[in-house]
């Protein structure tokens, strides 16, 4: 079953002078096992939206149903939070335990699992994120490097075996290889475990490369949701919103401005490269 967001509006501090409408009338479904990218300029409502997915924020109007469970029902919230894992920006700032093992075990313990159930989950989660349990379990999370801390924090969420994983800028601040490792991990969670992924990112290239569908938020409204191809064919509108374009799309625009006709709105470098090489060989 999916996550169904129906006519969701959210106003911060409603009824006060400081009332601020952050989201208006957003309807969107996160399908089982899909990779949904969320893009939008700062202040477009991305963070407000994702915090509704596990009931951290509740709708002012409308509803959010996670596998049929309404987030407004207080008694369902624990169940919802074990279904929807939430990884915030710079999650390593939330590490707090004395050892990596205890930090990763915190989530599943909180779900009420026994020691015997928790231990294999911790080990599995550490392996998934590429931290060898025998090497890292007993270390203090604060001894780890930046990239390792990020992965330890992620393991803490994965140990709860969420059905959906919501990530806010999971690659921010990582080096190029670290970025690729996190993306590969997310992709393998989806392929091997069928985890549904919701990822907020400023990197249009990453979203273009991995997302099945992309939701575009603008000033608290859903501008559109569609395949990367659909979304990045609206490049003028995206630029107007203050968003970037994937680098392949940027080059397509630059070539068109210079009088080269390119029919397709490419958003992946490999495909654009094939097109350009094809042209060169064809003309010879």
């Amino acid at each position, binding site marked *: 079953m999916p996550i169904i967001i129906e006519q969701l509006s959210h106003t911060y501090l409603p009824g006060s002078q400081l009332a601020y409408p952050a989201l208006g009338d957003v309807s969107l479904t996160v399908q089982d096992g899909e990779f949904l990218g969320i893009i939008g300029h700062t*202040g477009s409502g991305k963070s407000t939206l994702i915090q509704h997915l596990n009931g951290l924020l509740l709708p002012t109007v409308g509803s959010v149903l996670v596998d049929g469970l309404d987030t407004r029902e207080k008694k369902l919230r624990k169940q919802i939070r074990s279904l929807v894992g939430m990884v915030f920006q710079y999650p390593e700032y939330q590490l707090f335990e004395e050892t990596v093992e205890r930090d990763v075990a915190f989530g599943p313990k909180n779900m009420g699992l026994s020691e015997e159930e928790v231990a294999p989950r911790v080990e599995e989660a550490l392996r998934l994120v590429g931290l060898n349990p025998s090497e890292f379990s007993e270390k203090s999370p604060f001894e780890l490097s930046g990239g390792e801390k990020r992965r330890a924090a992620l393991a803490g969420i994965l140990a709860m075996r969420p059905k959906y994983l919501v990530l806010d800028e999971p690659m921010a601040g990582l080096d190029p290889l670290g970025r690729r490792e996190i993306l590969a991990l997310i992709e393998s969670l989806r392929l091997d475990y069928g985890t549904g992924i919701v990822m907020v990112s400023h990197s249009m290239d990453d979203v273009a490369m991995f997302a099945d569908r992309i939701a575009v938020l603008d000033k608290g409204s859903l501008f559109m949701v569609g395949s990367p191809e659909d979304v990045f064919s609206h490049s003028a509108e995206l630029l107007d919103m203050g968003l970037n374009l994937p680098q392949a799309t940027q080059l397509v625009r630059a070539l068109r401005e210079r009088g080269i006709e390119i029919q397709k709105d490419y958003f992946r470098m490999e495909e654009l490269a094939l097109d350009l090489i094809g042209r060169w060989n064809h003309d010879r």
Partner: protein
Amino acid sequence: MTPNALIEIVNVGFQYIGAEKVALKNISLSIQKGEVVAIVGHNGSGKSTLCKMLNALLLPAEGYVTVEGMDTCDEKNLLEIRRRVGMVFQNPDNQLVTTIVEEDVGFGPENLGIKPSEIRTRVNEALQEVEMTEYAEKASHALSGGQKQRVAIAGLLAMQPEVLVLDEATAMLDPRGREEVLSTVRKLNRERGMTVVMITQFMEEALGADRVFVLSEGRLVMEGTPREVFNERTLLEESRLDAPAFVKLRDELIAAGLPVSHEAMTCDTLADELVRALQAQTENN
């Protein structure tokens, strides 16, 4: 000492207390007046440690660092070095100290004991340089990330520094905020000859530098123009880095026989060369 060197780093080594590995090993490099230098490297490569050596936030355990000839280890130079080397850090929310924008910009010169009328002039000029004049009396917490970083830069400009050091100052910003900060810094370099040291995880940002230094595991493994450095694809990958996307595309096109030069590293330069190549070919047919 190299003529014109603003900052000299000589055989610098450093290890954090209790750490297993050395943070920096035998680093030597010099930064010239008026140049833009990028320092890139994987997480934990020692970039930020090196950066903190530039204004004596950290002192080398081995070797030495000088700023305009002043040794950072000599305590009596501290104030002069800190005034000359302005630092912008990663988190926009950690750097503004007062509630109103112009007060924040005036904080530095006030601490230097400069007289109020002169502070006024400096604050106004600095805000103008970063294009934040209209926000002078606004609350600093309400600004966007990019605006906060520009105010932080203005606060440094008001101290009339010789060099701006940006320690991943764009890492937490959205694309628009990043561009605001980068264009501000480029303008300061172009128009005022400001020396700029940029530490970054975005390889595209390093393309705009005069020279790029690559750190890996605390060692300086490469140094050169962006063109030289980003052509060393294997060495980059061994250092957990990557070439910018347009450089990788360019190399693929060259390998397939397209007459594109190694100068093309950005969207616009690559587009220019591709147009030239494709049009010349059509005319030949």
